[in-house]
């Protein structure tokens, strides 16, 4: 095959058996790879009602056909599994260099199943696959684990691993690769921990076969130039990274503040990308084959918060900043470092602390519950201390590390969990920006912005304009973003490549790489298929239309200040139109006609 390696590696941790299977070319064409292929494997092999942390769940590391090529930002892989945070079909996407290395070792996907009797790690060197004892690395942080495993295998090995949070199966645990990149959401790290799998280390000496090298080269060079020429991909993101969004979201009144009790944070500028560039930036950093380099290597010297690492991204700066009422960027960055070291999703971690702070504000928890930590809004030391306790699984921290829904529900107040389908929503207030609220409510993995980033049109005027305060047209806009993103995620390219790269150019790269005569219509149909595949699996897991909603706060409590003061989410005005435009019935179930159109089985 071209683009794909044509091989799937299967590792049964219960028996220690390692097998290889051929990738069906028709499956490859229809589901492309990464999120699409991984979802297809999970839907084919995992009972949707299985306990996500049981040996019956499976963990798929899947690359896309473009992964490992020099297509722009083509360094992505997905971790696909049943996510324990909220029981959805999880697909967590990460960059760095791990995905390309897996591809060079010869695999489109690695399926991990069962459970090891004791902690192990996988050592994959091309065709040689070993399940190794991980006793010496269990308990270590992500950087230490990475160093230890490289020392035991190969200095050039690319390592994806869990930290202590994943080991004790915190529901917001992630899988870190290349030390600083994260397959972050839905608790995929807890699944890895439940299987006693500490890490996957890989070295590959192969390459990616290209169907039409000359045409692929031309398509890639054109695509790279499109990003380079784009004001966002070529200038805005490289200059300040994603953190630059803090101020614009604040100015439109859409920066969730103090656990979404407001949409405006007066001190936001102290936590934005401009402040990071002035105070902490060491250098920019890009993932494999990326010309954008949105990553930030940072250093903090402030006493009590010292450290060096990567981040924060916008989402992290918001979750630990405005959402916790904290305006000390040094503390925010330190909390980010700790999340990376312990292996926790920064969005869910910061948001869950914000939830704990609201419980504290309302007297539902006191310092007697929090092991003495003062969770008053804006307490910069508290966000760092609580993050450490979460990573260690210590006392109240262990409760917070289960995510805000379980935390708030445990105290009888689930209404203070700012989640959609029990996953913490990201940094855009759905009362100020109507379309993103529809996306949160309908996202197949719960609260998430990268399933359908309508912010591009609603706030950033990138690629189009849509008034954030109106609901008209948002169903169609949301679906267009969701389908394109699903297809893009399946290729192995980064979402940020679309800040410049058109869908048509992406298809040109994919077609010349694989030799399949993909058209833009077929590509978008693949995205639609991937979306519906995830929807069908979630429905079978027990989700219904009642789960396509938002926290009551967003539907009933108007924003009290800022530029969107007085607004609420009008989600109910958008959902019926969304279902109809998706080809679903009034209960949000894909119709027979829709399934036939996409060649999907119910």
């Amino acid at each position, binding site marked *: 095959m071209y683009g794909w390696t044509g091989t799937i590696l299967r590792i049964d941790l219960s028996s220690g058996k390692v097998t290889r299977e051929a990738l069906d070319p028709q499956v490859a064409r229809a589901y492309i790879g990464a999120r699409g292929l991984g979802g297809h494997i999970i839907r084919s092999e995992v009972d949707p009602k299985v306990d996500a942390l049981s040996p019956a769940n499976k963990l798929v590391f899947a690359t896309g056909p473009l992964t490992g090529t020099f297509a722009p930002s083509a360094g992505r892989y997905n971790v696909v599994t049943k996510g324990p945070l909220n029981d959805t079909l999880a697909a967590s996407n990460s960059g760095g260099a791990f995905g390309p290395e897996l591809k060079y070792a010869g695999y489109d996907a690695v399926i991990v199943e069962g459970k090891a009797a004791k902690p192990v790690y996988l050592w994959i060197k091309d065709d040689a696959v070993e399940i190794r004892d991980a006793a010496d690395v269990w308990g270590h942080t992500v950087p230490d684990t990475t160093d230890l495993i490289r020392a035991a295998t190969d200095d050039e090995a690319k390592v994806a691993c869990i930290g202590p949070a994943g080991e004790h199966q915190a529901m917001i645990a992630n899988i870190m690769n290349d030390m600083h990149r994260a397959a972050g959401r839905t608790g995929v790290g807890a699944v890895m921990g439940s299987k006693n799998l500490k890490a996957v280390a890989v070295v590959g000496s192969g390459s990616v076969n290209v169907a039409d090298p000359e045409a692929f080269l031309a398509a890639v060079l054109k695509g790279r130039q499109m990003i380079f020429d784009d*004001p966002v991909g070529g200038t*805005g993101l490289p200059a300040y990274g994603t953190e*630059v*969004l803090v101020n*614009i979201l604040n100015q439109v009144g859409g920066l969730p503040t103090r656990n979404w009790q407001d949409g405006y944070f007066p001190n936001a500028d102290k936590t934005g990308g401009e402040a990071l560039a002035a105070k902490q930036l060491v250098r920019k950093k890009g993932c494999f084959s990326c010309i954008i380099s949105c990553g930030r290597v940072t250093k903090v010297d402030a006493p009590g918060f010292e450290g060096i690492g990567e981040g924060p991204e916008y989402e992290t700066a918001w979750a630990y900043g405005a959402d916790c009422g904290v305006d000390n960027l040094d503390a925010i960055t330190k909390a980010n470092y700790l999340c990376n070291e312990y292996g926790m999703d920064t969005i869910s971690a910061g948001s869950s602390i914000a939830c704990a702070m609201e419980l504290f504000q309302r007297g539902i928890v006191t310092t007697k519950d929090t092991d003495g930590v003062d969770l008053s809004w804006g307490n910069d030391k508290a966000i760092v201390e609580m993050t450490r306790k979460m990573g260690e699984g210590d006392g109240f921290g262990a409760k917070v590390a289960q995510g805000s829904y379980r935390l708030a529900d445990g105290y009888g107040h689930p209404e203070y969990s700012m989640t959609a389908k029990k996953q913490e929503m990201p940094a855009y207030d759905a009362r100020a920006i109507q379309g993103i609220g529809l996306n949160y409510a309908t996202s197949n993995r719960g609260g998430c912005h990268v399933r359908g980033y309508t912010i591009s049109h609603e706030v950033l005027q990138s690629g189009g304009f849509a008034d954030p305060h109106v609901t008209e047209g948002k169903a169609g806009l949301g679906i267009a973003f969701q389908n394109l993103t699903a297809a893009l995620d399946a290729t192995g390219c980064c979402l940020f490549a679309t800040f410049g790269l058109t869908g048509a150019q992406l298809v040109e790269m994919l077609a010349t790489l694989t030799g399949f005569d993909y058209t833009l219509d077929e590509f978008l149909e693949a995205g639609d298929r991937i979306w519906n595949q995830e929807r069908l699996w979630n429905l079978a897991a027990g989700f219904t239309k009642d789960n396509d909603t938002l926290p009551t706060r967003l539907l009933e409590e108007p924003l009290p200040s800022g530029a969107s003061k007085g607004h609420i989410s009008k989600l109910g005005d958008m959902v019926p139109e969304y279902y109809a435009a998706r080809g679903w019935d009034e209960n949000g179930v894909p119709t027979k006609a829709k399934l036939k159109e996409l060649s999907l089985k119910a």
Partner: protein
Amino acid sequence: MTVKYFATIRDLTREKERRIDGRPGDLRELLTQLAERYGRPFRRAVFDGDGLHGEIIILVNGRNVRHLRLLDTPLGEDDEISVFPMIAGG
């Protein structure tokens, strides 16, 4: 009124914000005034010929002027104007 500058626009203005004591009637007047103060790089960033540059984001009280009346957007004494380059993230 107050004008606030963000990201690379701050490199052009060398200040984060400015209080405007005069009464520019609309956005065109305001930007023309500001272009005189900050010079050609700022003018090139905000204007494209006689129109608003396609790669500038200007909010008046949090509303993108592309959803208002672009350069003809009327301004009042208490208005807050925010000027951003094209940015993104996630």
